[in-house]
């Protein structure tokens, strides 16, 4: 009996102490592995999610105050373009657009109260690896290189994957998609950073920094590759069906939708025209360059053509209706009531009688913190979904719409941008009537309700001013304002012909100046972010990674 018990117990213990190595084979049951992205449906899922999520939404650093790419990185442009201001200090957004000084109507000179007080120095002082997500200049770089990496990954997968149906058409569509977004990523990088990296390998990089001009050249090369891929497509049905899966279904309304092959090519040409226009100061643009801009714009986005857009949906999958865009963050019941404050200089650029102005509301004057300069004080805010009288969509465009799906955001180009590039080229190519016609066309498209300017003037200066105003108002919140301020020389020091006079500025004691002078004095191209340089130092022979301007 006793012996049996001992056996029993021993066997029991022995049973317990037997292992099974199979149990260690634990897989992550929550997410697909990278292999899943090599099937047709997997590549499509990745080509969509990678572009929209990695390209514009998710980064290792972040800050909810300025948010993601289209409210944050684009927002910084609008701050430096003096379309909006900010009081919050997150990511130094109250300093990025703070001018050197403002001279009020009474002669008071209000200096930038920050230390360092000059934007060039300030940008250098925050561009440190240790500043992590507080380094304002980090964001655009990181988003765009993530987008580039996603595109490199798509290109590497497409060549290996097998597609059903007209595989060649699908591969070409996918190739065009990847090169198009690569072209966009390089366009953004080359248009704001002094140098960049050309990187065509997924998950890797190189230390060979090249000039911003070389980055723009690479952008154009990628855009050409996209166009070439599109040209090779014969099976339009398979093309459309695939593109319809890449473009989020809830954006396929309004100007968004499945682009025809030609429409896409027109989008490509508009972006190529932008690459030239925004990266050359107007003062040094050559006739050849203007001609190129005009040629490209003439084959750019035509009125009514589909473009790449983004909208919110009920679950805010890609865009948060309340905070995803610059204009949503500028919308409030009363002036100053949201993170971004609408600039008085933006409002003063409306022409009298412009119906679009009704979508901007004057309220109780908002005065921000007295020791952050006066530039952000404002009487205005954006009207959410516009005033009823403006009767959108048949009537006047809305600057802001915070209802679900209400706001149509242009991801890349738009008809209006293309048309105004034509106008500007025509001004400098001495075809004023064509320029004025384009301006009228844009105003009509946006429901401005302004009297036509065509035939009203033969003064270049007047037409230039009409164009300046229309680019400010008609293309507002589309991330182009800083490019314009830069190429028109507004951001230059007053001693170098920059700045702005006759500006509306509200002083700290609520006095409205209408003839104030603003000396912005901003750096034109940012240095390469230190987070990049710390982990990927420049190799010998690289282009300078720092803008020599002091």
């Amino acid at each position, binding site marked *: 009996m006793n012996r049996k*018990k*001992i056996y029993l*117990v021993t066997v*029991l213990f022995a049973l*317990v102490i037997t*292992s099974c*190595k199979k149990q*260690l084979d*634990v897989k992550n*049951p*929550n997410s*697909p592995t990278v292999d*899943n*992205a090599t099937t047709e449906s997997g590549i499509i*899922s*990745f080509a969509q*999610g*990678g572009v*929209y*999520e*990695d390209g514009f939404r*998710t*980064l290792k650093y972040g800050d909810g105050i300025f948010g993601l790419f289209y409210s944050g990185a684009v927002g910084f442009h609008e701050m430096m373009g003096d379309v909006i201001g900010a*009081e919050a200090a997150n990511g130094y957004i*109250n300093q990025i657009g703070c001018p050197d000084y403002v001279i009020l109507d009474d002669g008071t000179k209000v200096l930038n109260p920050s*230390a*360092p007080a000059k934007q060039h120095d300030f940008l250098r002082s925050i561009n440190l690896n*240790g500043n*992590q997500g507080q380094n304002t200049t*980090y964001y655009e770089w*990181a988003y765009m*290189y*993530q987008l580039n*990496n*996603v595109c490199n990954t798509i290109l590497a997968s497409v060549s290996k994957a097998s597609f059903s149906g007209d595989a060649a058409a699908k591969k070409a569509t996918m190739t065009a998609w990847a090169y198009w977004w690569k072209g966009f990523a390089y366009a953004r990088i080359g248009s704001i950073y002094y140098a960049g990296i050309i990187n065509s390998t*997924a998950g*890797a*990089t190189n230390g060979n920094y090249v000039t911003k001009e070389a980055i723009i050249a690479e952008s154009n090369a990628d855009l050409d590759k996209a166009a070439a891929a599109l040209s090779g497509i014969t099976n339009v049905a398979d093309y459309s069906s695939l593109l319809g899966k890449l473009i*989020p*279904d809830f954006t396929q309304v309004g100007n968004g939708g499945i682009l025809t092959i030609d429409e896409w090519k027109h989008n490509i040409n508009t972006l190529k025209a932008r690459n030239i226009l925004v990266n050359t100061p107007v003062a040094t643009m050559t006739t050849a360059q203007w001609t190129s801009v005009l040629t490209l714009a003439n084959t750019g986005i035509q009125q009514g053509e589909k473009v790449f857009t983004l909208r919110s949906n009920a*679950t*805010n999958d*890609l865009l948060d209706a*309340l905070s995803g865009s610059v204009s949503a963050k500028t919308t409030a*019941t*009363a002036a100053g009531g949201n993170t971004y404050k609408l600039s008085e200089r933006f409002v003063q650029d409306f022409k009298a009688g412009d119906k679009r102005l009704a979508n901007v509301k004057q309220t109780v*004057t*908002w005065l*921000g*913190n*007295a*020791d952050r300069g006066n530039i952000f004080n404002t009487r205005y805010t954006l009207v959410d979904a516009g005033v009823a009288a403006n009767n959108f969509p048949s009537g006047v465009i809305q600057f802001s719409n*915070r*209802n679900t799906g209400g706001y149509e955001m242009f991801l890349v180009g738009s008809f209006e941008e293309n048309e105004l590039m034509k106008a500007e080229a025509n001004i400098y190519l001495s075809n004023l009537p064509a320029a004025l016609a384009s301006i009228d066309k844009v105003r009509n498209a946006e429901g401005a309700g302004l009297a036509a300017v065509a035939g009203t003037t033969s003064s270049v200066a007047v037409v230039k001013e009409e164009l300046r105003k229309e680019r400010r108002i008609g293309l507002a919140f589309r991330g182009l304002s800083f490019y314009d301020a830069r190429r028109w020389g507004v951001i230059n020091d007053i001693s170098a012909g920059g700045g702005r006079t006759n500006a509306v500025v509200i002083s*700290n*004691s*609520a006095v409205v100046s209408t003839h104030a002078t603003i000396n912005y004095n901003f750096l034109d191209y940012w240095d390469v972010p230190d987070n*990049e340089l*710390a*982990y990927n130092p420049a190799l010998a022979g690289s282009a300078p990674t720092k803008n020599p301007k002091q």
Partner: protein
Amino acid sequence: MALFCQYAYAQNRTITGTVIGKSDGLPIPGVSVVIKGTRLGTQTSGDGKFSLSVPATAKTLVFTFIGYVKLEVPIESNVVNATLLDDSKLLSEVVVTGSGVATSKTRLGIAVESVTAAQLPATPSASIDQALVGKIPGAQISSVNGNPGQQVNIVLRGINSIQGGTKPLILIDGVQLSATDINAIDLNNIERVEVVQGAAGGTIYGAQGANGVIQLFTKKGKPGSMHVDISSSAGVNTLINSGDVHKAKSMSLVTDASGNILGAASGKPLVFDKTLSYYPENVTWNSLDPLNQNNKPYKNLTYYDHYKEFFKSASTINNSISIYGGAEKIDYNVSASNSYQNTTFKNNGDYKRSNFSANIGIQLFKGLKFRTNTQLIYTQNNLLDQTGRGILYSLNNTRPFANYNYTDPDGNYGSYFGDATGVNGFNPNYNTQYTHSKIAKIDLLQNFNLTYTFPKFVELDVKYGLNYNTNNNTYLIDAQDNNANAGYTQVYLTNYYSAPTITQTGETTKDNASTVFQNLIGTATFRTDFKNDFHLNIPLKTSTQLTYDYRKNVYKDFITYGADAPSYTPFNSSNYLVFKTQYDYVEPFITYGYLVNQKFDYGEYGGISGGFRSDYSSAFGRGSKPFTFPRADAYLRLSSFSFWNDGSLGAIFPEVKFRAAYGEAGIQPGAFQRYVTLSTKNVGGSSAFFLDPNQPNPDLGVEVSKETEIGTDIAIAGLKEGNWLKNFTLSVSYWKRKTDNAIYRVDAAPSTGVGSILQNAFGLSSNGIQVALNFSPYKSKAFSWDFTTNFGRSKSIISSVVGQPVVVTSAAGSSNYVLKAGEKIGQLYGFLMLHKVDEKAPDGTYFIPQSQQGDYVAASNGWVVSKTTKQPFVTSSQYSLGDPNPKFNMSFINNFSFSNIASLSFQVDWVYGSHIYNQTKEWMYRDGISGDYDKSINIDGASGAWTAFYRGVYAQVSRNGTKNYFYEDASFARLRNVSLAVNLHSFFHTKSLKKLQLVFTGRNLVTITKYTGYDPEISSGTGNSAFDRGVDHNTIPNTKTYQLGLNIGL
């Protein structure tokens, strides 16, 4: 059956007696009295008396009690008295943690600390973690948040892992407690606690033991008649504010000639819109005007004392009952308890916990024992803001003229009163009105233990523990459609759903998380005694331990929300207009391993042991090879040798032992840290993949932590004559450890398209010393005084980093830590303000160029400021501010006992050299809210409460940037515990009442510190973080508690 028959026919008789202590002659309550060779027995009552029915066959009684030498007394008459000798107590206790086999401390090569239930104070939360603060020499246990249910931070020996934090392994009766938080365990149910702080002992538990081990032993029944213990206590808690944090009584806003605060836009006195609960205009604050002083009284607006309005005293109520006893082959202890706490922040909810436990031991047949221990815990957490940081931040950043108790004509609270009251200020009452939170947590711990002792040599032991936890969290936000203020300001509450308009508010989040953890440990122990077993004249004893240890953890979390509430009430989740499954995650993790450990003891003289542990882990998948880590220890008892024992040394030092140990432990990567996946999301009607910028790494290896410890345990007899200075014991340990390949996220160059990647990037090294000293300053029949002091110091540095220094931002705000080779871990970096105009940077250059030094002067508060702007000088670069970790921590514990009628104990904790970054204050500097603004300073001959200085501190160079100004000495001494217990049962001459004790307890009553925040002990960083320990960012401070308790024993 036969056994029972024997007893039925046996002739029983009753033995009575009294047990006293030899040193003081006082009766000792609670002594275990057992008939030798049986499990029959009883305990002495409060007056040291016992009465026991014994069979005629019984020959000897065995008396045991912790702190006294075990005594066997033959039964020669019906009265058996016993006089117990004081043991050199802490040195000979039997412990099991870290050694695997129950071993007297005199035969251990490692340091094991132990605390008995009697030494643990009653805490307001009745939780064990709080009670351990200050009790373990060397350990840094800090109560870092005063809200109910918040965990303590524990560092046992330095920092061994960065991502793994400092949380030690928690065992309960030998099996791992993994799913349940230690603070859910009922303090009343714990008999004793053992702590092994280092890898040398911890490695026998595998990877999980690298941060040290805390083992809890639950109370078991004792043979004898049934006992009933009832205890009940009620307490009052108030917030600690040792730094007198308050809002400035004066203000410096622009006013008219009558002193009315003006609206910035209108220039007229500021008016509150009572319909909108809103100030339509901002104020003007010329904060940087060098002439502006914070010296104006509030005239047209009222100063509300927000702290008076929102901080109140909270209550705690604890009740428990336990019924225990046993017979020869069975013992039982069944207990139930209930604990209630509410918060010191107004209407932030309450926290309730109920514990039930049943611990039953049965001897199935000779040699085979079975034990089942069930613990069932239900916790209901109704706190709206768990850490309290959100609501306290909102309150602290509101200018004091905001009347947050105002309700609009509809009876609603407003949320945002406008920029005039501070852009970061929000009304906590608004949250209270519209949010409801309920976390229902069920914990089950079921341990089974089967032990078979062979007649000789071998003992088999199997333990199986099932630890289950489920958290059902319901967070409800009411629709706020009709709130005038929120509608106007568009500031309203949402959770996962970002409602585009206020009419789309109203949201319910349901978060169901569960953990099922299983731990199976099978151990075979072979023991030999060469003298008794083999009749060899060698005093050698051996023990061999073979253990198989299997753990499986399955964690699941499922979060759904419904949003955009319908317009009617009542409604349920199915009536929401928007639904989403927000999160669905499953994480299985399996690890198992083998331990082999061999020990030799040579007589009383010394011993050695050594072994290894080999572990498999599912993090490495099916084909993985095991990771094997060795350990060894040795001890030598000088006091056992005759040259010592027989001479005068032995009389002075009855016990002297030296010990040394070495151990390695491998810390495995997390379950999926080696597993690369694609992230997924829904984009409208399609499924999309994307890459997480923060990537796992398929090449990750284990982190290896290696530790060496040496130590000594010494008993000193003390004064022979008189009542003073007796029974000294001193334990000292020095330890040194290093971790190779510590895993952490390392940034990647953004151009790779990857944000960061996990890497075995860090080397860590630390060392420290721990000392425990106990003695009786005075001992007599009427009065005894016992004194304990615990000391610990440790230092952890980063010995190597692959690549660039890693900058990490505190989970609490924007303070920067830098993980850099050669520097201490947890080093804060920031901008410097200067004390001298000619101060030099580390590179030898002047911070202020010599030509400009004349523009600056040191103000009366010691900081260098500009003569013209009155703003402080702030360096443009960041420098190390220092290491916030303490230089040492110490505790002093005194117990006084008066003739068994009353006892008084108190504990003082002293933490020296710690620092806190006072981010709470920095934020309160932003809008002129901090009380510091009232303080006058003299700058270059001019005295005043200059706002340019205070605002400049916040704003210069980097607004809210980390600056040495806010890096404060947070050393403190705290009267952690004072407890007065009065035994009343001796006044009642009834046998049924064994205990009637009234206990007054005070906790955290006095704090001495220079720290100017609320509480120098708090930390706002991630709990048990390796580095994020030095920031105070609006964390709810600890509480001061007065508690009255009644303990009844029947």
